[in-house]
């Protein structure tokens, strides 16, 4: 095989650049979804820990349902269902006509909602791991609730939650492949188009697998470093 007919090349007939661009899209949709999941997950954890009966019930229902149905169905539902919810909502604000989420947002929000269910559990577990003694000590020292949260609870929860949150990130990254079903050109969708156009499916799906491995390995490395920093205080000499 010469360099010119190598389908993954970067020339005019090569799919290399397209695949790299698709990898950027994967990162973009995964990061957006993850960020959204962090917000939803924190709210969910808060509702489960501090909420009243109703809030707890809602949070429990949310985590149970989202963890019980296939993610691909959640993505489809967001994609097709967003306008059914958003159009009447927009009508309230005087916007007529269809309002709907573009594929990118529908995918990111769906991923976020799914990962939020897992992040809520991770953060709840981390909160439980904070020893009551530390909180009591802080209160005894006269800290306000805000300071207590900012200086004691948040850093400790983050430290305990970090490995779990890292796992959720890996999950989100893999989940982003499912967004391909809406037509968003991320790694997998690009690989499918390439495979179909050239008749070389192995080449393209293998390249896709390598790209995911690379992103995943890089983020694991980054996470280990962060983890090392955050646990400096608790590391034994």
């Amino acid at each position: 095989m010469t360099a010119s007919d190598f389908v993954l090349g970067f020339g005019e007939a090569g799919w290399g650049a397209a695949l790299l661009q698709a990898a950027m899209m994967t990162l973009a949709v995964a990061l957006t979804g993850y960020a959204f999941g962090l917000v939803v997950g924190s709210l969910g954890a808060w509702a489960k820990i501090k909420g009243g009966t109703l809030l707890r019930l809602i949070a429990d229902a949310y985590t149970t349902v989202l963890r019980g149905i296939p993610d691909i169905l959640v993505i489809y539902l967001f994609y097709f269902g967003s306008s059914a919810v958003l159009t009447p909502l927009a009508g309230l604000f005087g916007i007529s006509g269809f309002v709907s989420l573009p594929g990118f947002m529908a995918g990111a929000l769906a991923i976020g909602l799914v990962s939020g269910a897992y992040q809520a559990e991770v953060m709840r577990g981390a909160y439980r791991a904070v020893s009551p003694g530390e909180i009591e000590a802080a209160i005894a020292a006269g800290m306000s609730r805000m300071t207590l949260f900012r200086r004691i609870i948040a850093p400790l929860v983050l430290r305990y939650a970090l490995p779990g949150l890292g796992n959720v990130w890996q999950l989100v990254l893999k989940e982003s492949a499912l967004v391909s079903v809406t037509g968003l050109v991320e790694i997998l969708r690009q690989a499918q188009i390439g495979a179909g156009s050239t008749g070389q499916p192995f080449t393209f799906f293998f390249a896709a697998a390598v790209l995911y491995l690379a992103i995943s390995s890089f983020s694991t490395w980054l996470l280990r470093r962060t983890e090392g920093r955050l646990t400096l205080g608790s590391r034994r000499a």
Partner: protein
Amino acid sequence: MDIPFLYETLLKLLTGVPLTLQLAVSSLGLGAILAVILALARLSGLRLLAWPASCYVFIFRSTPLLVQIFLIYHGLGQFHGVRASFLWPILREPYWCALIALTLNTAAYSCEIVRGALLSVPPGQIEAARACGMSSFTLHRRVVFPLALRHALPGYGNEFILMIKSTALASIITLMEVTGLAAQLISESFRAIEILIVAAAIYLFINFIVTRLVQWAEYALSADLRPPPAALEQGGAL
């Protein structure tokens, strides 16, 4: 809401449940065997065994299942050598491709659960068994595996649910399980949302049952951790 349509959809989608369950149960069963082998390899202390097992786990856990399914289904078919080989009668069937992909995938995740469970067996118990003169085989059969099983169960329960959800991806390679049927119904009636909600409800119900079964199994396997029956009666929990 169009109740008759939802009911009709439910009846049609339910015909896909046997295939969904069959895929999940078979892949979990085969995956568990592979997972135990992988975990033992990783814990063997022999680099020649441990390293390939670690690599396997890393690769399958770091790539999306959908990519694995496509690689096995479309990817392997690209090569004449594969198509001419004795494996082709198996690999040419979408069902077997889906089952292989799901099995290899769950084995990688389950390997970590099994490994953790095996490591959790207290060394004292193993020493005690050795001191009684148990052979390595008996030791594993009577002490290590039962204790590890109990420890692995909560984690494995999650894996059950994840795998039932994962079978939905088999629809991408033409299998007509619940999600595949849902996609077909959508293409006939174009009523996406109602059909998707019915499909989601079916998965939710299956997973609810599975969760209950796992809880029951956990309960059944932890007889020694429960209070004596007298206390139970007082509590009246069961």
